[in-house]
């Protein structure tokens, strides 16, 4: 899959709204002041922060999840392990991961069953595996609405599910982190594992999209 984080490849994000918006400037100042204080007190080192940021900007991302899904589609035994003991199965692939204090649980889509993940109380997300969540996932409208009207929300994302499909929402209210194993798209029977990776978007791992060729979901991967 296309790497989603290649906005400029460099550190430092001078987005247009940052310098001009006084509220953003105040937030930036508060963050800078707090960092300076924490460094002065010896609580954190700037280099530690740099390293954490660099890792989440450049290494840890949805590609991890795509690789797991492609392997599961290619290897039924791996899939069985991924669904029953995700931690062990994930370890087999030696992926670049963050701290794994929170176990990952993989929930499987199948004909007639569609899963979708949310955290209504804050914004829990399998970041150690998939990288940091997109803004919409953390937004009050998604958190408020997807437990109450998942079909309407999925429709907004361009995904109209048949009435006969069971929709299962997972509210990650404790220290488990959910990832969806999407269905293997029709027509991909002869694709190689590397080709299958390209079919797995971040959104399909959250459950707001199906897996498929990028052309099917141009607006939002």
């Amino acid at each position: 899959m296309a790497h989603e984080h290649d906005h400029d490849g460099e550190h430092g994000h001078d987005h247009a709204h940052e310098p001009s918006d006084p509220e953003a400037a105040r937030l930036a100042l508060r963050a800078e002041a707090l960092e300076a204080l924490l460094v002065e007190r010896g609580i954190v080192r700037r280099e530690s922060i740099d390293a954490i940021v660099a890792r989440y900007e450049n290494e840890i991302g949805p590609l991890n999840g795509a690789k797991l899904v492609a392997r599961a589609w290619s290897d039924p035994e791996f899939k069985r392990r991924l669904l029953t003991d995700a931690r062990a199965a994930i370890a087999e692939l030696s992926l670049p991961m963050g701290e794994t204090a929170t176990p990952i649980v993989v929930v499987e889509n199948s004909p007639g069953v569609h899963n979708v993940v949310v955290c209504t109380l804050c914004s829990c997300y399998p970041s150690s595996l998939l990288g940091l969540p997109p803004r919409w996932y953390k937004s009050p409208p998604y958190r408020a609405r997807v437990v109450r009207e998942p079909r309407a929300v999925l429709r907004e994302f361009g995904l109209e599910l048949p009435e006969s499909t069971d929709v299962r929402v997972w509210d990650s209210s404790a220290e488990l982190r959910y990832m969806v194993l999407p269905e293997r798209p029709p027509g991909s029977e002869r694709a190689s594992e590397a080709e299958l990776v390209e079919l797995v978007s971040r959104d399909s791992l959250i459950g707001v999209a199906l897996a498929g060729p990028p052309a099917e979901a141009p607006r939002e991967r």
Partner: protein
Amino acid sequence: MSAVHDLGGRPGFGRIEREAREPVFHARWESRVMGMVYAIRRANWLNLDAFRHGIERMDPARYLAASYYERWLASLERTLPEVGALTPGAAPPPAGPYGFEREVGAPARFAVGSTVRVRARKPVGHTRLPGYASGKRGTVVSVRGGYVFPDTNAHGLGEQPQHLYSVRFSARELWGESAEPRTSVCIDLFEPYLEADPVPSSAEETRDGA
């Protein structure tokens, strides 16, 4: 009557705004706040539950208006002095066991297939019981093992590990007549949030929530 951060099912929210080609961070300060939180937690200065409770104590209007990393920043500014991290010469508490999984002394009260009823959400302090589940009946679909109990750990009252369950609720049980068909919500709930419910789920609920 749940606090503003407890958003599940709250009416009034509109379209979900998405962003094409979204960057990992929207401003440099967001990345610094994220890095600080991870580094501070690694140094054992802040437990996750106290950090979340710091977010939950934001002014409700500000909470809804704030971006994600502004909430993180607000919680750091509030909780770091509370735990004494900014006192010159202070040392962090000794590191406990890794992660959140723990042994629980007693056996699990419920098993896969148990019907349970969610108790009333406690009115004050941190909890991981979403308000929309209060008083609702569901079915245990997975017994997840023992975990640190956020309701005590957030308040310096210890880890007091509890059994954790994934409990499935039919949309009809949660939302009544306005529920979408063939829809269910699964919530991870700690044993103290639950009581045994002798009434089995109705056929309707079983169909919706299967």
